[in-house]
């Protein structure tokens, strides 16, 4: 599903955000990406959905080499991804409903289908009663849940979530993790960048660790040991 070959990325001349990363993530996998702040987690994810281009190396998503892709094809690729951005990236002028329905509208779905799915998605994150609010009229955690609903509503091939529970309490985090597991069970490949060791402990899966832009660990649950923290 996702293949990353020897990828380098530096935003500025002097410092590299990613240095020689190579990773294979098979279809249907569930992967955590961890690492200290500034390790390059978000950068790696940004490369996957084409928001940034690597300086070197190749990236294949769903069989397509996105480093060589014409920029006009990038949106087509993004349609089969569900992305939870670290800073949410909600449309502040649109209502919660409109935000979640947006990716479905892009896909050209029928209106009644959209309504049904959006309502369902908002219900699973516990916000079905706030669908006419604007994002800035929500609490931080509620905004994050809208972002999650937007990513899940398209039933994505790949679900990319960047720190999706940073603003959520443990209870809601559990519920969200169940949603991610459900999506994974229905066939989505799941990538979650997170700092939350508790989460990794409760739902042990493959963990890819970055530090200073380098791959420093890639452990599957079998070899998994309780972290020091």
């Amino acid at each position, binding site marked *: 599903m996702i293949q990353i070959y020897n990828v380098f990325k530096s935003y500025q001349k002097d410092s590299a955000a990613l240095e020689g990363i190579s990773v294979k993530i098979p279809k249907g996998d569930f992967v955590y990406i961890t690492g200290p702040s500034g390790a390059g987690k978000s950068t790696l994810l940004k490369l996957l959905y084409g928001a940034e281009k690597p300086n070197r190396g190749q990236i294949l998503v769903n069989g397509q080499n996105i480093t060589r892709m014409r920029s006009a094809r990038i949106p087509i690729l993004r349609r089969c991804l569900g992305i939870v951005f670290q800073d949410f990236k909600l449309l502040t002028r649109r209502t919660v409903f409109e935000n979640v329905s947006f990716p479905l509208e*892009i896909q050209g779905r029928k209106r009644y289908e959209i309504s049904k799915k959006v309502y369902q998605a908002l219900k699973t994150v516990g916000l079905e009663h706030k669908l006419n609010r604007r994002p800035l009229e929500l609490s931080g955690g509620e905004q994050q849940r809208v972002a999650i609903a937007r990513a899940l509503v398209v039933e994505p091939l790949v679900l990319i979530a960047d720190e999706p529970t940073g603003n959520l309490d443990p209870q809601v985090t559990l519920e969200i993790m169940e949603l991610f597991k459900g999506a994974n069970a229905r066939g989505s490949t799941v990538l979650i960048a997170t700092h939350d060791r508790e989460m990794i402990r409760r739902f042990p899966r493959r963990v890819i660790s970055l530090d200073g832009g380098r791959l420093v660990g890639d452990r599957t649950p079998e070899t998994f040991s309780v972290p020091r923290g």
Partner: protein
Amino acid sequence: MFGSLIYAARRSVRNMRQSPFLCGAAVGTVAVSLSILALFAILALNVQELTRHWSEEIQVTVYMDVPPQEEALGEWIEKIEGYPEVEKVSYVSRGEAFDRFRERLSEDADLLEGLEPDILPASLGIGLKENFRNRAGAETLIEKLRENPSFSDFRYGQEWLERFETFADMLQMIVTVLGGFLLFATLFIVSNTIKLTLYARREELEVMALVGGTPLFIKTPFLLEGALQGTLGGLMALAGAFVFFELFLLEGLAALPFFSGLYGIIFLPGSHQLLLVLSGTTLGLFGSFISLRKFVRI
């Protein structure tokens, strides 16, 4: 395709409702800048009308040493009226010429007392068609008239014509140059404003792209919005110019005997009105198009 256009239209209406301030700013700017253009056009049009009116005074006068026989006169007039340059021909007898001269002297007319009316020759006044109201036209005509040996002298108010041409040229130049500048200014101001309204929403554009919107999908509602705002602005400019015309120009100028005597001042004709509104649409559309190219880069 049609369905998605309707869908885009719905989205663009929603957009506008969601940011009334930005929408108002765009519409207002289009309205105000097109109003300037419209008022300028009204002025240019009326000045043009005025010069056209003045140009009617241009005529070639043919003097005849011997007053013509009535029969021959009829023939001549008919022949002259056949020339392509000629609009109308009028005969001025010796007596009439004397009367006119007296009138022209006005306050000094008493000087002519005691003079015989036959000191002035009879003449033909030949009015020219609009396209020939210039030196070249008058001279071509005179060339043809020379064939008739009874016509002893030809005049076409060379001095007046020269002045008139100069004046018309000058007006033409001012209108062109100023109009050009105003057009440029409108273009600049409107596209600038639209760019600013889209700049204020560039995060929205960015997010749409990140969530998988194709450039076309993202841009279409904004283009429609631009076109709609432009059209609205154009209509408001038209209405504004009309009110302005009715309130100030018409009332004000009509009160002046100079104008009301000559001809009624006119508003923009239908075709210009349409043009004005359509320029609003075009400005809005292209302003959005150019700005969107800058802000929507996938």
